């Protein structure tokens, strides 16, 4: 089976889509000759030229606005925000314009664009280059939010996002860019709004996003040696959120743990936990629904402190043991 890295899978998707659809173009900071801060667009300028791989000044509101205006007039832009932290500078355009244009205008306008951005800690980049802000966008009706955890899903979800007729916030993870996995050569779509059960088990449902999926899988291997079987579900898209497999899983296991890197308070985990307890799975719960998330703090620079600021494999193992053992 052919393997690609997460970054290569994204690039292959972009190349395929741009070859088949002249309405698609890329716009962002240092995405041309530099190839993007994390190399996702490396080499694309050689094939598509500077008119379709557009380097911008450091103007994040401008990048978002450029995507919106082009989308409103028939194009399908793919914008890149160099670090998810910097999307704070685009918030007005995304929250008050992109998300609301269609609704405010009576459902008569379309704003089909994707804004890609790398999130997450683990690179020693400290508090202003390590944010995980996906919950902010989940809170804004009109936006879709996608968080791929594997090279396969990165390629297929990006294609779905580009051809979706809505603004899509596409959250990549810096530590995933170099991870490798099976990626078919053909163009394919992973539909938005389909959770994926990535490991089956009977004892505990773990809902994990982005890099936490691979950490949960590692934890599951360790726990399996003790006879604890995790069932791991990756929602893949936070909006729209496919709760069905999650609810079905919790009915089976009777226990649920939600794991994400973003800080716990106000995080996406609270949403998933609430939806579980509001669902028919409530009657099947044998333990409280728990969240394992980033500490409520900015990401520290120091390597050890940074490591301990967000969930790691051993934290998932410990939390799972407690939940399954009835100690919480």
């Amino acid at each position: 089976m052919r393997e690609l890295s997460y970054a290569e899978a994204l690039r292959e998707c972009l190349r395929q889509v741009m070859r088949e659809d002249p309405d698609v173009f890329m716009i962002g900071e240092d995405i041309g000759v530099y190839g993007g801060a994390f190399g996702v667009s490396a080499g694309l300028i050689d094939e598509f030229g500077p008119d379709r791989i557009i380097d911008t000044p450091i103007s994040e509101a401008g990048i978002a606005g450029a995507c919106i205006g082009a989308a409103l007039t028939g194009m399908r832009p793919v914008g890149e925000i160099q670090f998810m932290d910097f999307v704070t500078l685009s918030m007005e355009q995304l929250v008050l314009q992109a998300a609301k244009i269609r609704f405010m205008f009576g459902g008569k306008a379309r704003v089909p664009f994707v804004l890609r951005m790398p999130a997450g800690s683990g690179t020693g980049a400290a508090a202003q280059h390590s944010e995980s802000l996906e919950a902010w966008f989940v809170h804004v009706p009109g936006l879709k939010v996608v968080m791929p955890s594997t090279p396969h899903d990165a390629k297929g979800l990006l294609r779905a996002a580009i051809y979706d007729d809505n603004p899509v916030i596409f959250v990549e993870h810096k530590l995933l860019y170099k991870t490798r996995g099976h990626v078919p050569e053909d163009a394919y779509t992973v539909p938005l709004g389909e959770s994926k059960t990535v490991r089956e088990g009977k004892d505990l449902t773990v809902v994990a996003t982005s890099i936490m999926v691979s950490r949960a899988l590692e934890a599951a291997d360790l726990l399996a040696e003790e006879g604890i079987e995790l069932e791991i579900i990756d929602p893949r898209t936070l909006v729209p959120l496919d709760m069905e497999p999650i609810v079905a899983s919790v009915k089976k296991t009777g226990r649920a743990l939600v794991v994400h890197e973003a800080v716990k308070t106000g995080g996406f985990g609270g949403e998933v936990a609430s939806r579980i307890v509001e669902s028919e799975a409530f009657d099947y719960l044998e333990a409280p629904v728990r969240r394992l998330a980033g500490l409520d703090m900015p990401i520290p620079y120091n390597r050890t402190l940074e490591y301990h600021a967000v969930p790691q494999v051993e934290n998932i193992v410990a939390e799972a043991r407690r939940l399954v053992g009835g100690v919480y």
Partner: protein
Amino acid sequence: MTDQTQAPDPQTYLQQWGHEPAVELLKRMLLIRAFEEKAEELYALGKLHGTMHLSIGQEASAVGASFALKRGDYLLNHHRGHGHCLAWGSDVDLMMAEFLGKATGYCRGRGGSMHIANIEANNLGANGIVGGGIPIAVGVGLSIKMRQTDQVVIVIFGDGAANEGAFHESLNMASIWDLPIIFYCENNQYAMSMPVRRAINIEHISQRACSYGIPGVTVDGNDLFAVYQAVKDAAERARAGRGPTLVEAVTYRWRGHSKSDRQAYRKREEVKAWQKKDPIRRYAQALALDDQELENLRAQARERIEQALAFAESSPEPEVSTILEGIYA
């Protein structure tokens, strides 16, 4: 930057346009005035749900700019936008229905006064965020350039918006890529209560164009001919692939910022002095219409607004069962 101090000669334009089209422009201005006056009246009668931002006194700016552009061009405008929308040729029935929040309105009652759009006519909508439409214009300009059409986009904003970061990012991006954009600043002297003379430490907002290497021009925004010429020049330049222009139209907001404004920040005499520069009366004089002819046209405009109001009032409210429609495509 050029400060266009020399007023254009009206007769040149009137000969070029012909009498009927020239009168049509007057009718549009009167329609805007009548719409705004009716809006104000409806508010006073308690018939409206929200607030509104009236453009009385700024009619020449809206109509002159619109007339300088072609069908197929794009419009983005701001919260004080009824005038631009009518100048763009919008259906006053559908506008009034939207204003009253009716299902038959342009935006099915979802947008209201501040968010009227007519996507089919490339009117990409009014914006409730000061400066919010300016970055979007960059994307529209980029799209025009990539699709290689001969369209232009005009983005209309106020003096307040020229102090938002979005303005500066956008002018710069439009300049480096030679985008076909007309940045059209209606300097009506006040950003809510903040006078432009205290908010900006240069004589003309159009001077800011220098920083971005694009032309900037200031015109008398109450002179329809001057506005027309400036926007026409900017559009020709844009269509020729020579990039954006910043046009500043100096005008005056006769009414308060919104309906809650008691206007403690300005003197009555100042307002009265500007009312003497009424853009409608001024244009009517250029057309050599006497008072009676002007009043006849004014009555016609009011009659048309009454018809629009009747349409709007007899239109259905949106069905509650449709409340979630239009959020996602």
